[in-house]
């Protein structure tokens, strides 16, 4: 147990987390530091492209049928997370169901920055994982957003008595066209169809960790700024945002371990699945939900996700699941 704590503390000192906390601190102190929006967009594109390329190259050199069960698990988790939120957060006093469902959708959806943060963490801890696990991103992201919008629409139409048909395809299309999923899928496609190794080795791979650290500063600053929004909504959102990533992570880690027993899916892969489940969308999810569930309060779900959900996923869930994986691999007694 002691060794587990030591490892956990080591993770807390990782550059990823250090930069995140740095961002939170400077923004809380009212610093004027501003990183231009276009830089942020470029960095998130770059990171997801690199992750996609890694995944694509891995898929090219592996058996594509291996991905089936983990992908199915990702879809299931994405859907279940929305219902968990509907029946826990949504039942709390003073919480409107559409707000709870939208929050669940955002927490079921996936954060590119969190995904980018877990992979170097696994590398550093020398926990092996299948590189294609990053390609599980859209399998969880899209079902979560679609489920949230459908559940909210059904609830609202029942309540108002006006049956409005929900068109599912436009939601899927919008998610697929979002910048995050496009960058990732394009990377996967280029990794499979072309031989990007030269640019990968000379450009994408060497710059990855540096850009990731800048992204972490931005996420930290964003978290501190969104805190103000979160203060304006019910405290249940903050409580949910703290507990949900951990619960979702364990749920996914459990499923990942079942697949590990069944098909030999790696424990590192189960960690990636767990962290994807623990993460909550910060780029593509909010606009989709804002358009899909207009009556839900964006301050509630964006505040919950960006101010608390993402920091918890990065600062607690990543070290936690990597620590558990190391323990299971027999590195700790």
């Amino acid at each position: 147990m002691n060794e587990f704590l030591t490892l956990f503390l080591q993770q807390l000192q990782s550059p990823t987390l250090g930069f995140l906390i740095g961002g939170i601190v400077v923004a809380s102190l009212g610093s004027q530091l501003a990183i231009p929006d276009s830089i942020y967009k470029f960095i998130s594109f770059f990171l997801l492209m690199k992750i996609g390329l890694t995944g694509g190259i891995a898929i090219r050199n592996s058996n594509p049928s291996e991905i089936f069960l983990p992908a199915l698990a990702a879809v299931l988790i994405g859907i279940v997370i929305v219902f968990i939120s509907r029946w826990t957060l949504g039942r709390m006093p003073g919480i409107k169901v559409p707000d709870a469902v939208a929050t669940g959708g955002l927490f079921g959806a996936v954060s590119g920055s969190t995904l980018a943060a877990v992979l170097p963490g696994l590398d550093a801890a020398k926990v092996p994982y299948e590189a294609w696990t990053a390609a599980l991103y859209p399998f969880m992201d899209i079902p979560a957003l679609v489920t949230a919008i459908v559940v909210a629409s059904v609830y609202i139409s029942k309540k108002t008595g006006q049956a409005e048909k929900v068109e599912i395809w436009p939601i899927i299309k919008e998610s697929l066209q979002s910048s995050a999923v496009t960058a990732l899928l394009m990377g996967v496609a280029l990794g499979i169809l072309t031989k990007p190794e030269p640019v990968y080795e000379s450009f994408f791979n060497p710059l990855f960790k540096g850009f990731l650290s800048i992204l972490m500063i931005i996420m930290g600053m964003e978290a501190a700024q969104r805190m103000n929004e979160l203060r304006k909504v019910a405290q249940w959102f903050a409580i949910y945002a703290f507990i949900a990533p951990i619960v979702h992570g364990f749920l996914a880690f459990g499923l990942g371990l079942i697949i590990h027993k069944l098909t030999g899916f790696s424990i590192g892969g189960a960690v990636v699945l767990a962290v994807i489940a623990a993460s909550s969308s910060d780029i593509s999810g909010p606009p989709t939900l804002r358009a899909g569930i207009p009556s839900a309060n964006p301050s509630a779900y964006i505040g919950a996700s960006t101010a608390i959900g993402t920091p918890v996923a990065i600062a607690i869930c990543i070290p936690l699941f990597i620590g558990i994986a190391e323990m299971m691999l027999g590195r700790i007694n």
Partner: protein
Amino acid sequence: MSQQVWKLVIVAEEVLSKKLTKLIKEAGATGYTVNAAGGEGSRNVRSTGEPSVSHTLSNVKIEVLTGTRELADKITREIEKKYYADFSIITYIYQVEALRDHKF
């Protein structure tokens, strides 16, 4: 050389930008101008200044010049019906003089 036209201004959430411009074109307007906007209203401060990860809290200001008041009203009615209830959005209108006539 100039023509009296109506200038309809819509300040709205950036997530609506594409939908609004589509609506404007479909209503029959010949064009529009979109600017990034920031400010404060009944639904909190909304700004383009701070780094905004998701763009859900950014605003746009859309200006439409229409030759007739009817067209401007038609656009406003559509926007009112679809978006007033759930989104941060305001619309206002005034008469202006377009210096290139016969365009509207």
